[in-house]
């Protein structure tokens, strides 16, 4: 009997979840016997919402696919089963089972980088009690359980994830310090000035920031008691969160002879070069030299891979991704896209610093087009910048216009707007009449004729009156009256 080909997917994170959606859309789950091996128990969950799990301690909401979903779509889910090797067209599980496949997708994800600090691990290799990585729902729930008002917490790493964790800890009432190796925060998304503005903001929210600081050792016998820094100073803490970034998981790939560099190598169709029927997707793969740790490009990869597997679109190709990042931290607005510094002599840089407002904005322009932008403290213009960035449109000649795009203001009002359609009365004439003394809808109608036809503009007349009547704010009275 000839069965359907077996598609084995190793890993059950967000990339797999999206790949399964894309496969189902293309009826790929009918074309293949799909089996998914996942290490974490249960279905895939949404890592975007990790900080929500940290904030309110609920994990059910971040589930992307529950076990039912797999069952409904006839997909075999083998959660809690680790794949340790492969031989020919079979996979070996930790429990010793041999699983055949016709096509293999590696979606192994990434692992948090834990710096080899003395004292960070116990003898068995596990993290010392009190030390955590910020990666899984369980990590979040454990951190949440450990953090109390007054808990002293240290976060190693001042990147996106580290700051997210630090703010979460702050919000739980922990006395939080961020220790960052580089001179400024979020240096992959922000230039030095941006990083400094961000540090100022975070400090004002009660966080301690130590930049240009490297750690030497984790203190404490049984559990974490503090962090020893390279200048031999110490920070006492009960809770240590390591957020030093992630690296693609490639151990299994290496074990079974799949080519890797930083990640598993893939081409534009997510195929592993030189190996028929083996693919990789998500954080574990390396495409044209880049590994991605955010979801948007990974979704695009999943789509391309689904087209490849189901033969639904032979032109589908993953062409790389231009990053847009926002810091997901309440009350702290940071957005960044593209280049962070001028890269050629011709690149033009527009910078606006507003220290009192805590706002820093920067554009990098090449040939009249936006190639990078940073926003700290005010991300209102980020959406507009993103549009220019994505479309490659010429920026306004006056670059500052970009910061007002779409804002309500004098520039977005047409010269005159017809308010009364029946009597053809424009806004200008009405405003003149109001300045001339009309103070009610009736007197305005009388003077201009507006509102005497169908009457549907009377609301607009009232609004105009209210706008014009709004008193001009008086300068504040001096504290001490002049003699």
């Amino acid at each position: 009997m000839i069965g359907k080909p077996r598609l084995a997917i190793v890993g059950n994170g967000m990339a797999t979840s999206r790949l399964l959606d894309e496969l189902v859309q293309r009826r790929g789950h009918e074309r293949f016997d799909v089996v998914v091996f996942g290490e974490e128990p249960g279905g895939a969950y949404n890592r975007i919402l990790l900080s929500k799990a940290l904030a309110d301690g609920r994990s059910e909401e971040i589930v992307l696919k529950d076990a039912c979903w797999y069952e409904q779509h006839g997909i075999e889910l083998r959660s809690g089963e680790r794949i340790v090797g492969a031989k020919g067209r079979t996979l070996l599980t930790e429990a010793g089972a041999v699983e055949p496949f016709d096509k293999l997708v590696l979606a192994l994800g990434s692992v948090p980088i834990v710096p080899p600090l003395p004292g960070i691990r116990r003898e068995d290799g596990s993290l010392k009690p009190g030390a955590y990585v910020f990666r899984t729902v369980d990590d979040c729930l454990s951190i949440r359980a450990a953090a109390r008002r007054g808990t002293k917490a240290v976060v190693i790493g001042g990147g996106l994830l580290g700051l997210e964790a630090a703010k979460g800890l702050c919000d739980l009432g922990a006395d939080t310090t961020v220790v960052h190796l580089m001179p400024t925060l979020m240096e992959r998304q922000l230039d030095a000035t941006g990083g400094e503005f961000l540090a100022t903001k975070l400090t004002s929210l009660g966080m301690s920031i130590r930049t240009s600081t490297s750690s030497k050792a984790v203190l404490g016998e049984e559990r974490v008691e503090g962090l020893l820094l390279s200048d031999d100073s110490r920070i006492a803490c009960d809770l240590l969160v390591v957020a030093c970034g992630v690296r693609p998981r490639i151990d299994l790939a290496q074990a079974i002879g799949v080519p890797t560099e930083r990640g598993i190598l893939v081409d534009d169709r997510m195929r592993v070069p030189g190996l028929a029927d083996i693919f990789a997707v998500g954080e574990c793969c390396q495409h044209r030299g880049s590994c991605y740790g955010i979801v948007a490009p990974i979704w695009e990869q999943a789509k391309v891979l689904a087209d490849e597997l189901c033969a639904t679109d032979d032109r589908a190709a993953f062409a790389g991704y231009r990053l847009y990042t926002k810091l997901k931290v309440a009350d702290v607005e940071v957005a960044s896209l593209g280049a962070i510094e001028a890269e050629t002599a011709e690149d033009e840089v527009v910078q606006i610093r507003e220290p009192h407002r805590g706002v820093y904005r920067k554009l990098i322009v090449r040939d009249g087009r936006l190639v990078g932008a940073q926003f700290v403290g005010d991300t209102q213009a980020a959406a507009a910048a993103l549009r220019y960035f994505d479309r490659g449109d010429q920026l306004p000649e006056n670059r500052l216009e970009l910061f007002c795009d779409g804002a309500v203001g004098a520039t977005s009002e047409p010269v005159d707007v017809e308010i009364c359609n029946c009597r053809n009365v424009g806004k200008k004439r009405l405003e003149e009449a109001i300045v001339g003394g009309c103070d009610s809808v009736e007197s305005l109608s009388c003077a201009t004729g507006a509102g005497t036809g169908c009457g549907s503009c009377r609301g607009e007349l009232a609004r105009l009156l209210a706008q014009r009547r709004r008193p001009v704010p008086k300068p504040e009275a001096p504290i001490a009256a002049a003699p």
Partner: protein
Amino acid sequence: MQLPTLHAPATTVRTHCPYCAFQCGMRLTTGDAAAVTIAPDAEFPVNAGQMCVKGFTSGDLLSSPDRVTSPLLRDAAGAWREASWAEALDFVAQEFIRIRQADGPAAVACYGSGALTNEKAYLLGKFARVALKTPNVDYNGRYCMSSAAAAQNAAFGVDRGLNFPVEDIAGARTVLLWGSNCADTLPPIMQWFDKQRAAAGELFVVDPRRSATARAADLHLQLTPGSDLALANGMLFVAVEENLIDRDYLAERTVGFEQVRQLAMQYYPPHVERLTGVRESDLRRVVRQMASGPSMLLSGRGPEQQSKGTDTVLAMINLMLALGKIGKPSSGYGCLTGQGNGQGGREHGQKADQLPGYRLIENDADREHVARVWNVTPEDLPRKGLSATESVGAIGPGGIRGWLSLANDLAVSAPNANWAGERLADLECLVVCDSFPNETSRYAHAFLPTLQWAEEEGTMTNLEGRVIRRRPALLPPDGPQSDLWILRELAERLGEGDRFAFDSPAEVFDELREATRGARADYSGITYQRIDNEEGVFWPCPDESHPGTPCMFETRFAYSDGRARCVPVAHRPAGEEPDEAYPYWFTTGRYREHYNTGAQTRRVAKLAEAKPVPRLQVHPRTARRHGLDADGYVLAESRRGAVRFRIEITPDTRPDVVFAPFHWGGRDAANVLTSATLDPKSRMPEFKISAVRLSPAPDEEELGEAAPVDASQRTRKELV
């Protein structure tokens, strides 16, 4: 041209405006002079004494010199000649019989309208199925709110534009008006938003343009065309993330939310910001405000006229269900229906897949019920037919050869107008029933003149689902006849006269009541008398003692288990997105002064003077980039055609979006540019999104090779 014979002495009749779905109450006074005076009706609660300039000037149509008063047929040279009714009707019937014999009954199609009264819409559906025996009947509502209709049916099990009376708007704390420029298209509705805002409510508008409506709002979300679905899912993400969803409501009144949530949780704000161009801060502000009290989401054609229109509306409904807002006071989802009887027109069987009362033509019990009322056997009823755009595509040898068109102007309203014109020119027999010549009648073989709104009787169902009466205020001129009479006469000639022997609209309405008895849109308890007494009656109204249903879904939805369906829906690109060759989004809409294809309003002097031509809205920066002059012309080209527009340079549109109204035909037709990509669920064409490029156009009429092909030049069959 003969002037209408007027009632004397002066009488005042309460009726409704001929145009949009708001159906403003108006008082028509006829006196001893030729003039008709029109005033808004302060007693009708919907417009409450207001009316827009279109309604005020609608009386001009009654004395328009363009009115056709005699049936017209083509002479040997292809020019129109006047004919008697008997000759014209015989000709049409013989042609349809000839085509039916040669190519089968499905070769004749009927194409109706949301401008038809309920009685006419009902009778047209019956005429197609019983007299012509064709499955192919559809109508221009397919181009109007079919996506919202499909979505409401899927979510609630029934589709009524608004689930509440418009007065409820005044009590909403928040209104999210999505892709509707109602300040221009339904001006009298603005009074309800004024009241709502006077009571400290907030009004948010989603539109790629800073329209008149957007200017009136507290916050304008100027989104990227085609990203509405992503925006709605993004709002749901925020609602879940910020714990603003109503879990009890979801558990008690809906099914399927878990799957929706799992999908929506992929729409995290920066991703949505990128897809939609809407700031995260605005996204959050809207959702928080909506969750904070009674709130409404009202959609217009913007999100609906897309190849994912149905899914987009489903995403909006998911959001409102998640916030627990549907079926509660001054809350819910609503579709601002466009055409005068867009609501009733979609209920009574002029849709390819439906029978009266929203009964389904593929459902056996529904077929049986309607067959009994029509005195035919269920087996005699055709099955499901082709939708509007598909019917146009099916014109040709071996496909559709004959076409009966009532109260619409397909040549202007269809997407990819050049293509649609070519298809219509290929018909063997095109019959147009209307009061005025239009673009479609250029291709016609017979023109049958009909009555205007102020001359006829019937019922309309406004955007609230309120059934109201159109009342005759004056006698028609000699010549034109009612559509009902025309259908009856044709049925007679097709050998089915006994099933169409109605002497008045009221008799048709009585049969309609029977046909809808027990159906989702149940009219069986509605009578002309009750409509008079109650300022309209809201369906469903299953018997004469039933009060009607102003607010729907208060306790249950129309599915048998009483629960609403949450349907997971994902964003996807439009059928055509801008690229290097065609870098701008082109989108369409309406002017305050004109109504739909403009066949009526372009004939009213005051309106035509105010807006004589369509202008392409271009952002100043875009204009500068292409060297476009404020007083000049711009050539907009898509992959399907080109139109030379006068330009309107305005910062009200985005630099990457250009806009034109679609009220004109021929070489000014915006729809020359649009694409016929269809929504797979509603068969709605993607009017709101196509890709164009821009260049300066010469002032002179000489347009060179890029000249748009004037549809009217393709055929000799000019209307004289």
